């Protein structure tokens, strides 16, 4: 999946980063924290957002090797942050199973995907075997 920059309606600002090494996980979550700060999220929410980004980017490195992340500030209706993480790895065979608490195909604890869904307001994952995985998640400013 290639990273084209598409400006959606209502998106005030987009930052995109490549995720190719474990150091990029840290860059991505720091960047998300900064964007969340600018939008006006409180420190509790900023930490939730950064933790979600850490988990999903970690999955890219661990299960797909490389990908990219786009962090968008959403203006009005509703105001918030949207994060899109894509990779062109092997994809997920069974998404229902991957979304279950405690399921890991490796030696993980298996809380990355279901846990991230819990801490975000919107969470959508799609994956095609052999093509890659895309996670779209968002948190609204209360």
């Amino acid at each position, binding site marked *: 999946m290639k990273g084209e920059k598409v400006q959606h309606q209502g998106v005030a600002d987009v930052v995109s980063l490549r995720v190719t090494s*474990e*150091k990029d996980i*840290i860059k991505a*979550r*720091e960047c998300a*924290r900064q964007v969340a700060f600018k939008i006006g999220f409180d*420190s*509790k929410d900023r*930490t*939730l957002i*950064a*933790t979600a980004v*850490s*988990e999903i980017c*970690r999955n890219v490195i661990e299960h797909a090797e490389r990908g990219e992340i786009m962090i968008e500030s959403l203006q009005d209706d509703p105001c918030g942050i949207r994060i899109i993480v894509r990779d062109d790895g092997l994809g997920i065979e069974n998404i229902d199973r991957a979304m279950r*608490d405690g399921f890991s195909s490796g030696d*993980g*604890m298996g*809380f*990355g995907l*279901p*846990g*991230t869904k*819990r*801490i975000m307001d919107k969470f959508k994952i799609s994956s095609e075997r052999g093509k890659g995985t895309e996670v779209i998640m968002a948190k609204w400013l209360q």
Partner: protein
Amino acid sequence: MQVPIWKEGEYLFASLLTGLSDVEFLHFYDNLIHQVTVHKPKGVIVDASYVDILDSYATRMLNEMAVGVKKEGGMIVVIGLRSDVFSAMNQLGLNLKIESVPTVKEALTKLNHQYDDTMKSNG
């Protein structure tokens, strides 16, 4: 960035830094286990007040450290963990299997209790 570990009296202290990479975490793990083997401290106090995220990797590393230190007869106590960081980790569904207290003083009390108990049970 290397996580500093130092010895003070019968205890080891370490201070986690912000934005530690996985490799740096792993180095800390190895170094801590090494220091514990060498010094056999009564306990280890890890300052986590600079930690701004506990994701699944960091949590797993800390839990594994606790197991490693326990094997050497010691115990880890974490101090200064931010409540937003702790709560995000919990909401993810993760479980930190280490005692977490606000201050060094409370950590020392915990470690001393634990140490006395172990001594008693070992006769």
